[in-house]
């Protein structure tokens, strides 16, 4: 990272808080299962129930209590972090890959047509109309429709569904960045020297939109975590007994009067993860965008 950008990042309080939150979630997801050593799938019937029959509250054996089927809430939270991160990062990567590819192609070919005369079509036009149509559908509705149509939901299908439906905004932003970069002198020069289009895109355009991609990717992880939780909350995500924060939220909601921690625990987890990635993304955006925050 440019030292000036690094300096701007360090001086951005939100970015530091966001980084700490993300680091915390990553550490919990990576080492939590080893540290706590609890099984998220096995019921501990000996944990009993509360006075009014609600799930047992926090105890020495179960720090966050147990859920409606006597499973350790903390263990499920920790494994849920792992799941959320895997899906969030992988789906964002897929989304960036598709969005960047189409954005580069559309931006670079903008104003050019393929084919003779009036019959010529614009690659940019085709891609952007696809993006426009896709953006007409609210993201979550689209994801829910695909999720409901799937015969079986796995981690793979969830991240493919999320990744393949969330690239539209990325494509549009990358296109506009590409249109800006392609007319810069060094790109014109490389074309004049005979470099082929794919090489120009990869060697010269892509590095110059990388900052935007980093910011988009970071914020996208937050969106993917939220979307996965929403899918699970709506019973369209991973099937039981997979510990997902959204599913835990749904289950906890039914006990909010007697066992509010079952609702609070996944709620706070989602809040920390999503806010962390959003603050980090915002900090990165300000650090990498010299116009908004001059050195």
């Amino acid at each position, binding site marked *: 990272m440019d030292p000036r950008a690094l300096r701007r990042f360090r001086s951005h309080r939100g970015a530091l808080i966001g980084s700490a939150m993300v680091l915390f979630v990553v550490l919990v997801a990576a080492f939590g299962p080893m540290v706590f050593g609890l099984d998220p*799938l*096995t*019921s501990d*019937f000996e944990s009993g*129930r509360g*006075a*009014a*029959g*609600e*799930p047992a509250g926090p105890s020495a054996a179960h720090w966050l209590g147990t859920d*409606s*089927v*006597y*499973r350790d809430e903390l263990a499920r939270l920790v494994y849920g972090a792992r799941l959320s991160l895997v899906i969030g990062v992988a789906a964002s990567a897929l989304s960036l890959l598709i969005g960047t590819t189409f954005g580069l192609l559309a931006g670079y070919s903008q104003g050019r047509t393929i084919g003779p005369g009036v019959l010529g079509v614009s690659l940019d036009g085709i891609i952007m109309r696809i993006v426009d149509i896709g953006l007409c559908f609210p993201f979550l509705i689209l994801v829910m429709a695909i999720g*409901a149509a799937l015969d*079986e939901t796995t981690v793979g299908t969830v991240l493919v569904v999320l990744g393949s439906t969330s690239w539209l905004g990325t494509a549009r932003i990358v296109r506009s960045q590409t249109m800006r970069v392609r007319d810069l002198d060094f790109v014109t020069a490389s074309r004049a020297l005979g470099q082929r289009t794919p090489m120009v895109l990869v060697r010269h355009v892509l590095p110059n939109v990388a900052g935007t991609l980093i910011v988009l990717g970071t914020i996208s992880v937050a969106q993917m975590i939220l979307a996965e939780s929403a899918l699970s909350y709506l*019973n369209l995500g991973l*099937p*039981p*007994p997979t510990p997902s924060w959204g599913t835990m939220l749904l*289950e906890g909601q*039914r*006990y*909010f*009067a*007697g066992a509010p921690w079952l609702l609070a625990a996944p709620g706070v987890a989602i809040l920390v993860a999503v806010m962390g990635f959003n603050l980090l993304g915002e900090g990165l955006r300000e650090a990498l965008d010299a116009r908004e925050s001059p050195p």
Partner: protein
Amino acid sequence: MRRRVRALGAMAMVLGTACEGLQGPIGERRDVPPERGGTLELANYSDVRSLDPAVAFDQTSIPFLQLLFTPLVDYAPDGRIVPLLAERVDVASDGLRHSFKLREGVLFHDGQELTADDVKRSIERALDPETPCPSPSFYASIAGYSPFHDGVKDPAGKVAFAPHLAGVVVEGRYALRIDLSEPDATFLPALTLYFLAPVCRSGGSKYARDWNSAPCGSGPFRLQEWSASREITLRRHDGYFDPGLPYLDGIRWSLLVRPLTQRFKFEKGELDHLRQLHANDLRAYRGDPRWQPFAQWEPAKGTEAVFLNTQMPPFDKVELRRAFAAAVDWKRVVAAQPDAVAATQMLPPAVAGHDPGFVGQTYDREKALAHMRRAGYPFDPATGRGGYPEPVTFVAPTDTAMVENFAPILQQQLAKIGIRMRIKQVSYPAYLAETSRRNRVALGYGGWSMDFPDASDFFEPTLSSDAIQEEETQNRAFFADSEFDALLKRAHHELDPLARAAMYRRCEEIVRDQVPWAIGFHQRWYELVQPYVHGYAVDAKHTEDMRAVWIDAGARTSGRDLLAVMRPWGRR
């Protein structure tokens, strides 16, 4: 020779001994004389689609049908079948001829007198082949049903329908006879349903969808206003044949009200009855002794289970089915759910034939492991080696207690005998479509809620060979057992209640041993009325019975503060 109400008496004997206490009106516990007037405020979380008795058959519509229409016979609170619109019922000794003497001077809501012609017209209207009646086969034993409902093919292949139902004969202005083609012990129980209840002449002799917006019958209440998906208001029918009833001026029924909202409205005194409770709220009310005089458990009318497809691997092997049933400790599975009672038999407590002493499917892990060995899939719990090699997918509709509260525990218990169960949640329509087709689903959520409290209504639609269809079958286990089928057929026609009971008991034994269902639990409802509501009773067939409810107006006015105090949580 006729013996008056022979079948009614026989039915009463069985129900009287077998049904778990259909509890009396909650209000009867308070010694106050009935008061007239007032509007009862009720709510439901679902919507009403139809109020035409010939076609409506869902849990939301039926309480309305009960108030708007009057069947010929009904269940008394003690489980006996008693005349209602009929003044007297005579059943011939061979069980074929049923003679009904109607009450005289009964008025429809439009003021016209109800006669035997109206009863016949309404029966033919409901069983007309063009009427989308969901269960016309309940009445298939009426003489002439087949030519009237199914038609007869002539040599050219053209289907001709009889113009009238031959078995229903008007014998006078207030006299009607229904002849059956064969003895049918389920005929009178099915007659307590509302399908054949007389409708006003405005309902015509043919079903018309439009009439649904202005349903007209002879029940204690008439429809005043139906605001679609919002509210239904009923007013007292002044011409109701029982001069003492109803006590209320009206009933206002709000629709699509979420259970949580219902609870808050109940606490504020804006609702007078609460039945659709979240488990958490249920626990809170149950735990508060001040509410006990105004609350009761409704006897369970349904059985929840897991069906095992007997024609699909791996559960085509009976030993594997037995292993499944023995591996699940349902008492532990439902321990945390106050509205679920672990079951060992198909018939729920509210159905005649339920025997609390019956030893049905029981949990025994050692036996389950032995069954696994006999099935050819030995499993060593110490090493986790062996068992059925492939995961088995359990299909259930989303957002049901079976998936959320029970399936994860089943999964753990089955893993201990070497069966790896995967849970697949699908939408309810997808669940119905998938599980009701042959060779599609090996394992899934099953169960049944009674239409009327007779054992035939449980066994015949769910496990008889006759119920098997390539699509849309209710026999999701595709269970076919010749002894079971023969017993069901004999019991259907058997008029001796003791002989019937013995046959259904044998059916229970077959289900226990052949395990087309791993029987889980009986779901029951907890319900409360406000302290000023009296005369509320549980209906023997369906849910609530509001026909004799009355309101203590003084207590209602002064009771708001009391309600605030009686909240089972918060301010005390």
